[in-house]
């Protein structure tokens, strides 16, 4: 990965990271908590004193539903309807993201709901114009 330039936006650094399969976050030097995805200050305490860190990409899928078709955003028309999940990452961060490896059908989603929380790992989805944070069931 090329070294980030002084004026690179956190947004660009984040998506450049995703393109290489890395989840870039910021960690607060005041309260020790994560801001993910990364911004300019700590989303918990407002401190501007932050480090860059990488997340493990592991977590737990708590709930899985799906989106509408055609998708609200044209970028996702080719893959809609897709499964969209509510997750807790191992670092304690709540995230919502596309879930791969589960069919967007009532039957499949009902099975996930009845099974309960599922371990997941990051599985970046590469769209034509952008790498997108996504996860899939682990193992």
């Amino acid at each position: 990965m090329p070294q980030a330039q002084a004026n690179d936006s956190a947004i660009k650094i984040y998506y450049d990271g995703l393109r290489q399969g890395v989840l870039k976050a910021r960690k607060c030097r005041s309260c020790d908590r994560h801001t993910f995805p990364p911004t300019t200050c700590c989303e918990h305490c407002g401190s501007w004193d932050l480090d860059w860190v990488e997340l493990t990409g592991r977590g737990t899928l708590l709930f899985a539903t799906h989106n509408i078709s055609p998708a609200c955003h044209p970028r996702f028309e080719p893959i809609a309807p897709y499964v969209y999940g509510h997750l807790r990452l191992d670092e304690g961060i709540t995230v919502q993201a596309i879930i791969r490896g589960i069919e967007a059908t009532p039957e499949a989603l009902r099975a996930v709901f009845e099974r309960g929380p599922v371990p997941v790992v990051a599985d970046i989805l590469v769209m034509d114009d952008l790498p997108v944070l996504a996860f899939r069931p682990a193992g």
Partner: protein
Amino acid sequence: MRNRLRERIAIAGVGCSRFGDLLETPELKGLSIQEMTAAAVKEALDDAGMSGQDVDAVYVGNAMVHSSQLPATYSQLSKWIGTELRSGVHFEAQCSTTNVGAAMAAMAIASGVHDKVLVVGLETTRTRVKDLSPYEREPISHQMTWLWTDMAVNQAYQVPQGYDIFSTYNGIVALGYCRKYGIGIDDFDRGMFEVCRTRRLHGSMTPKANIQETLEDEARRKGYADAFELWRSDKDNPFVAWPSRLKSLVTTADGASAMVVTRAELAGARSQPVELKGFGICYRDLPWYDEDPTYWEGDRRSVDQALDMSGIKPADIGYLHTHDCSHISGLCTAELIGYIEPGKSLAYARDGRLRFDGDRPMSTHGGRHAFGHAWAASAGSDTYEAVTQMRGAAGARQIPKRPDIAVIHTHGYAMVGTTLVLGGL
């Protein structure tokens, strides 16, 4: 935060247009945005016994400027509503706009600067300007409406990565609710049917509602054996975010609403004012909830601020509207407020307790599904209904025990929890 108003504040007049479509709905067809808005403003000013020249300031809200193409809306409207040479601003808090405007008006008045403030909300989510014409309009596709609407949502990370309002606001909240209270998916579906049936009944009794057809009449018209068969139909009521179906959602609308906010002693003898006793406003970026999708900290704070400022308790509430772009989210908010016992919303709906004639009346104009949703105008339409109910002027859908205290909660995308408390003056 002191969280107190230094003056008693009145809503002296309210107005609202029909919610519908500027190309199709009989009461709106052929009107410009300026005229649709002027009709709502005239009703509010007439109600307050004032003209546009009587107000000190005008706060005009419009969220989706892409379709209205009327930024600087204060001056673009001033010759249509009689408010030339006033103070004013264009602002937005998305779907909380008009009620945030009422709160800003209350603060301006309680500070001693203004006496009378006109708050206006207008929105076109069904039609847009056609080819730069000053009066011709054309329909907006659903995808375009959501692309524009979602510009109010985290544009760095959420929308670019597949965020979908129906997943986040409906499906995940529904699953969280079922898990938390041990409700089976089929029971949930039946409960959502009952909620929709109630809202559609309310819409059928509300002449300004977008949808005025009951679910039963729609089923008959489409050849179903009964309304539940329609409800379970993949064709007419598909899952949009499993286990939430299409008819548990918002319907889009063009519309406008207005209210006149004044010092209490200036509310005219010709009007039937209500007191704006308190409000609370609290926003949060995505995700709007932590691990438990049924509990929204932003709503907790907004509601607590409003109850504290107004000095009322949940048991005092005689009428409640919660933001119900998603029926299940609106019910979670009603439970958070303490109007419905935790986990009991679907049972209340089945037992008819949420109907206008039940003991916990909610959204008697039909809510965002039946009354329809014109983003920046909608909170004002909810307040319009609350004031109408408090005046005993709601006709067929009048709550039998006229409410002394009404609470209106709205979610301004994405996401401003806003709570108003109204009381008798």
